[in-house]
């Protein structure tokens, strides 16, 4: 662990913006919320944010991404992988853990270079959570801190940031800016320890479940149709919970022609399992026609299926879905608590 003064850190960030060939991304205020966006100055960086509107997955799996360019006139198809190397500053631990989960998805069996190359070309500068959103339950999910997945991890200990170096790349980043680093003493180590000890107070106190009970609870509740119908009753099938989720990655693939109608691009766009047509096939057959079935599917994905496949609970407790759901029915804590309370087994 090293120490960097806050003014030195600002200089470090400004130096990166000015001299590094990579795009520098940082968390910034966006009206009364926060968002990851390209940084113009260290002054815009808000490392005290609570949560961003969208998770940083948009940099590895953009909302719209070209996979193939074609020219039907010449019968030509070319693979496309538009990679912008980036330094992403201010990623919270739960988002880092979500990114690690997504890495497994895109590496598994058929490795998806469009995602993976963007990951390889990105440097993640994490920050421990100074503030948490009212909806966050990251401590319950065990995602309020992380020991891996970052290149650098900052902790705000007052006048300085304590910097944990997570990779050679992270260390190189500090060196290239000739940043003044100090060694930590016992006092600073205690401050970091204290910061982490105080973390739980920042989160919601209402979760009554343990994340590792979720696979079992979901198995028990799978067939309880009434439970899902009641919880999904007000669902608008808008897919917002999918869009803002750091571990949702389902996508659609479609062709978009330019005005010549002979050239165009095959795009990957975000899709969501809560949207009505998600499981539709030719001939109007829809294998997940009921909103309750779609609602259940999302929970099964987060709490059981991904766990079965990769050993991860795919809800990191960021609270984005809870906050942004218009009819206010997407809060996982609410659903998981109900399960826990009604369970006959646990």
């Amino acid at each position, binding site marked *: 662990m090293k120490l960097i003064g806050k003014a030195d850190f600002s200089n470090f960030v400004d130096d990166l913006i000015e001299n590094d060939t990579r795009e520098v991304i940082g968390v910034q205020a966006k009206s009364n919320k926060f968002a990851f966006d390209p940084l113009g100055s260290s002054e815009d960086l808000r490392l005290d944010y609570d949560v961003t509107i969208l998770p940083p997955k948009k940099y590895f799996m953009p909302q719209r991404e070209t996979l193939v360019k074609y020219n039907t006139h010449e019968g030509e198809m070319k693979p496309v992988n538009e990679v912008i190397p980036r330094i992403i500053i201010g990623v919270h631990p739960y988002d880092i853990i979500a990114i690690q989960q997504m890495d497994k998805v895109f590496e598994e069996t058929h490795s998806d270079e469009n995602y993976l190359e963007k990951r390889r070309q990105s440097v993640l500068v994490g920050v421990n959570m100074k503030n948490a959103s009212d909806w966050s339950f990251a401590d319950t999910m065990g995602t309020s801190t992380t020991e891996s997945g970052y290149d650098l991890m900052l902790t705000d200990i007052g006048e300085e940031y304590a910097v944990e170096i997570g990779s050679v790349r992270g260390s190189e980043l500090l060196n290239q800016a000739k940043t003044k680093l100090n060694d930590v003493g016992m006092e600073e180590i205690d401050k970091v320890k204290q910061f982490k000890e105080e973390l739980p107070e920042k989160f919601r106190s209402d979760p009554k479940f343990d994340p590792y009970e979720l696979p079992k609870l979901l*198995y028990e509740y799978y067939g309880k149709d009434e439970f899902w119908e009641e919880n999904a009753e007000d669902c608008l099938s808008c897919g917002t919970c999918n869009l803002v989720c750091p571990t949702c990655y389902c996508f*659609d*693939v479609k062709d978009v022609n330019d005005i010549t109608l002979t050239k165009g691009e095959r795009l*990957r766009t975000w899709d969501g399992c809560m949207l009505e047509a998600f499981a539709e*096939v030719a001939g109007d057959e829809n294998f997940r026609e009921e909103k309750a079935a779609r609602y259940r599917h999302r929970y099964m994905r987060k709490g059981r299926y991904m766990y079965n496949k990769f050993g991860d609970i795919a809800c990191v407790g960021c609270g984005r879905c809870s906050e942004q759901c218009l009819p206010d029915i997407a809060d996982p804590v609410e659903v998981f608590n109900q399960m826990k309370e009604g369970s006959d087994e646990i």
Partner: protein
Amino acid sequence: MKSNDSLFLPEQVRIIGQRELTSDTKLFDLSFENGQQLNHEPGQFVELSIAGVGEAPISVTSSPTRGVPSFELCVRSVGNVTSAFHNMKVGETVGIRGPFGKGFPVEELKERDLLFIAGGLGIAPLRSLINYVLDNRDYYNEVNILYGCRKPCEQMFEDEVSNWARRQDIYHESTVDYCPDEACWEGNVGVITELIPGVDIDLDNTYAVVCGPPVMYKFVLQELEKKELPHDQIYLSLERRMKCGVGKCGHCQINGAKEELYACQDGPVFNYELIKGFEEAI
């Protein structure tokens, strides 16, 4: 996977033959531009890719034992990609990704009595296995083929069907749900499940391989249940709208209480014992 880095870049294949099977269904014979082979297993599918229109998952209808290096797709015109494909002519090229998924268990089926049940377009994937079995006839025991369509003009592969009827080593029945007065039809009239009681089923040795629309599965499975055919001796091929073919896009997930299946990776061919607990499966 093929040699290119992108999961999404199709290989170019040329349409070398095309024929109309019914008013809305055509059979395409396709051959790789660079002479390579598809190397598919019966029951696998490819992503058919038409630049400017999109992609659609289509099962390969030809058996790998026939016509190599070319392969056949049987395509009904129901959406953007399939209707654009129907408008293409011999000599034109399209893209193919794949083959993907798990096909029929040709090894497990060896030495067994086989009962093929195809409904409508379900004959397309099943034909890859039927012809595979007929080309390796000595390895398989009894062969029963039941094939049902809505009406006589929807029956496909007539030459092959009449060959099944002629052969002594195949038991075959065709049926139509209804037969208009003006149609010429010598087969049965009635739903396909009515043909199942007539089949000699050996509970220790018969394997049923079923392919058709979701509603057909329901009734065929009920009928096989009456015959007490063990569930692990039934295979089904399921349809989903796979967008990627490689287990990423999420569209073909089939959820169940214990786990979820990806039709593109775990299927499209499934053992009924495995999927019967999955309410979304059929």
